[in-house]
Each structure stands twice: as structure tokens, then as C-alpha cells.
């Protein structure tokens, strides 16, 4: 039942899943000061990413996404880990910058679309250093 992902940025984390039904822009669609999804058109608008294992297929558009990710991590309002389908350079750039500046390691893991479909909001998962995702009862 575990999922083997690919590590895009190293780290370990545990927490409840927050699964996004649509891609998200972390500039304009996300408030890094509070970790809240503020894109009014997003299905998960109003949800907060802080401490969650954030799962999304990909990010949307903006060049500001790495800064949104790094700033939320700095504020302690960022996700504990990020799971993506597309190997997203912007998410990795944000997580790498936060690790460099603040010594906070937020792993970024990619998985395939079939595995992504198995993820459900609220489920507790552990992310291991080898990129595996373990569901905890």
C-alpha cells in the first residue's frame, strides 16, 4: 500500500495529506504569510497548507512560485512536504532556497498520476528519505 516516489529535494516529514484538485500558483493564489490558498476559483480555496503534506499535480504559471514556497516555509506556514506529479523545478527551487537560508528541510517527492489518484485529504503519511510514502493508520 506504500508508494515509492522519486526524491526531487531531500528530507523526511510526517503529517496529514492535503490533496489539491487543481494546479496552484504560489504567487497570487497562495498567501505565504498564512499558508492559505487564496485563489477564489480554486476548489481548495480557504485551506491552509501549514504542517500538511501538500499533494498537487503541478504548479500554475508564475515566476513567483519559488518565493511563495520559501517565504511560507520561513514563516512556519509552509507544507511539511510536497508531493507532485510533474517534476516541478519551481517547487524544488523554493524548497532548496528555504533549506539553504533557514535550515528547514521540506522534501519534494514526485509520483505518477496513478499513485496520485490514491491520495486522500486527511490521511496520515510518513515521507522517508528514500522518497517512499507510507500510510500510517
Amino acid at each position, binding site marked *: 500500500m506504500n508508494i515509492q516516489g522519486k526524491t*526531487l*529535494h531531500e528530507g523526511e516529514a510526517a503529517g496529514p495529506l492535503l490533496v489539491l484538485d487543481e494546479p496552484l500558483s504560489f*504567487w*497570487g493564489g497562495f498567501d*505565504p*504569510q498564512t499558508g492559505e490558498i487564496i*485563489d*477564489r*476559483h480554486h476548489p481548495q480555496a480557504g485551506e491552509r497548507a501549514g504542517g500538511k503534506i501538500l499533494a498537487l499535480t503541478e504548479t*500554475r*504559471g*508564475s*515566476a*513567483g*512560485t*519559488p*518565493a*511563495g514556497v*520559501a*517565504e511560507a*516555509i*520561513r*514563516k512556519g506556514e509552509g507544507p511539511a512536504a510536497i508531493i507532485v506529479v510533474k*517534476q*516541478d*523545478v*519551481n517547487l*524544488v*527551487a*523554493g524548497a*532548496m*532556497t*528555504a533549506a*539553504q*537560508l*533557514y535550515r528547514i528541510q521540506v522534501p519534494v517527492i514526485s509520483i505518477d498520476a496513478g499513485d496520485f489518484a490514491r491520495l486522500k485529504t486527511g490521511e496520515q503519511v510518513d515521507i522517508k528519505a528514500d522518497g517512499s510514502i507510507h500510510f500510517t493508520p
Partner: protein
Amino acid sequence: MLELSDADAGNLSGDNGPVTKFAARMVVRAAELLSASELIDVSFVHIDACHYYGQAHVDFAQMIVDGGVKVAVPSWTNTVPVSVELPDMRPPEKSPEFLKGARDLMTLYEQMGCRPVWTCAPYQLPGGPGLGEQIVGSESNAVTYYNSAVGARTNKYGDFLDVCCALLGRVPNAGLHRTENRRGQILFRLADDVPDALRHQEMLAHVLGHRVGKAAGSGIPVIDGLPSETSLDSLKAISAATAASGGVALFHAVGVTPEAPDQETAFQGREPEREVVLGIEELRAARDELSTARPGALEMVALGTPHFSFTEFARLAELMDGVKVSPGLVMYVSTSRHVRELIAGKGWLDQLERAGVRIVVDTCTYFTPAVRGANGRVMTNSAKWAYYAPGMLPVEVCFGSLEDCVRSAVAGEVKRDESLWQ
């Protein structure tokens, strides 16, 4: 498999200090994710990470400046959230920390050796890259314009990665840096019922870009049916609109843009993956989508998204000759310092300011915190402004041509000429 040059490998192992090592780690990680086999040189960078968003932006730039590292190639800066010269344009009492952070960040990028142009339309300045040059773009309209109208080559680089590339002068050789990935995918053909006069309008470029971006997603659209004399301002409009409503980073326009002398070349000899025919009905519908408000009294008119060009100012100066902005509203035109200097030399800056137009540099009017006057009903000639502002500011938008915007600014309420769309 990624193969590094000796210099790249040296940077990665820390030969040139910890900042350069971090930059190399990030660029190499990006290369691995993009399955690039090598890094290549770039000759130019347009940096977005100077656009303040929070303390992480400042801490990142401070780390580089403290390390004594500077950009390795000409690097020009994007817009920022504040106008240093108009401190009251965004009410400072709302977010003093935000405005201070934004100013501090500007200083750091100057110390890093960037050219402080603070514009989202760097391609309007002399000395930029040309056809076939490998570059780094970040702001979405500039990425699309450089790829499409100039024929320079860039992927869409996010914050921090843009700077890391600038510090090394290197990028992963992947995506739109490579010829085979610049092949057109989707053909958009203007139908015969689109009037010739409309095809020559810059307003059509905004609407067309909005429509094409929605249908193309992150694919590479090829537009057929634009006149060969389509202006650079129209190509700017298409770039901004396709990158806003879609994820377009490169488009071709047959007989207009440099990599599309004909349809076959644009598709690199292959067939389009699909074809979309756009008639006057579809274009009218796309135009209507850009307005969220019914016509009525205006609080603000917003021009210059992306930054207003010299040729757009020439048109505006002529349209504003002998008229004044209605005292009930504020009319902003966003531009770069460079273009403002050019229009000052022509006498247009004085003329426009006397007519009640506020020219702002370094920034844009849809950013938050909202500029004074940005509430209620706003008119714009920009598809990009119309697309983003209602989600970011307490505004409703009416879209129209530049001519419509001027007539409306003078009248104090929305006035639109419908005749072109019949």
C-alpha cells in the same frame, strides 16, 4: 545523463565559494529534473526575484551580496511592487514592512551588479538580446515576447533559479533552448469573416491572445491570418495575454514572427496536432469575457500592462491632444524609466501630466497593495490587466481599445466603439 564542464564541476564542488556552490547545485538540480545532458552559456538574464514578496526574497539576495558574488552576464531587473518616486501611490500605512522590504530588495539587486531597469518590458530598451541568443527570462510576458517576437531562446525561469543562472551565466540545455522543442503544435486560423480593419487593431491582439492562451494551455500555438505589418505592440499584447490565460511561453505568427516565415517552417515540416478556426463570433465572445462589469461611471483607467512603449505613448499623446482626464477618476499609465525619458524629450510627458494622466514607473497597477483609486469600476486596454486584477484587487473591469479608454477617461464613464466588431 548530465555531463558537466570542468568549470561547472568546480563551481559545484565549492571552488568558488559557498554562494556559487549553492547556485550550481540549484542549476544542476534543474538540469536533472529537465533531463538535460549539459549546461550552456546564456548572454542575458531578466530577473524576477527582485520583485518583493516576503523576507525570503531579501534573505536570499543578502546571502549573495554578503558572499561578494555578482551576476556573470548582463542582468536586467523586472518590475517591483513600489514606485520609489510615488511613495503615496500605494498607501504606505497599509503595509510599511512590505514597502520597506521592497525597497531594500531593489538596493541588493543593484549591489549584485544588475542593471536597474525595473520593467516587465525590457525588450523595449536598446541593447537586449537578438534572434537565436540563449537567455534567461522569468516574467511571463517577457519570456513569451523574447521567444516569439525576438526569437531569443528561454524557458520560463522562476525566482531564485533565475538569479542562480545569472550568477553562473549557465542554464540547462533543455526545453525552448533547443530548436526541436520550438516547433509549433496548434494552428489558430483567423476566419474570413474577421474584418481586415479589425486585424490591424492592437485591441484584436489582446483579445486573440486571451482566446489562444485559453485553448493552447502550455502548448505552442501558431497564429495564421495576422497582417505582415503587425506591430511590436500587438506582439507584446499577444505575449502577455497568452501567458496570462494560458501557460504559453512561445507562439509563432505566420509571416510576422522570426521563426515563422511560413506555416511549414513554424511547424518544422510537420502537421499541426490540431486546428482551431476563430471567427468574429468567437472573438466577440473572448472580448466580452475580459469585462466583468457593465458600462458605467469609472474610478480608474489603467494602461501600460505590460509597460507602455514609446509608440503607444505617441498614440496616447495624439489622442489626449486638447482634452483632459475627468476629475472624478484617476488615469494611470505604467511604463519604464527609459521610455519615460524618451517621451519627456518629445514633450509628451508634460502634455500628458497637464491633461491629468499619472505616469508611473517601476511597477504595475494590478499589484497589491492596491494603488489609490483601484476600486470599483476600472477600464483597461490590457487583456492581462483584465485577467488578473479582479482576482487581486477590489475592482470590476471593462475592457476596451486604447481609443475607447481615452474617450472614457475624458467622459468619466465607459464609452466603447462597437463598429469594428460588426
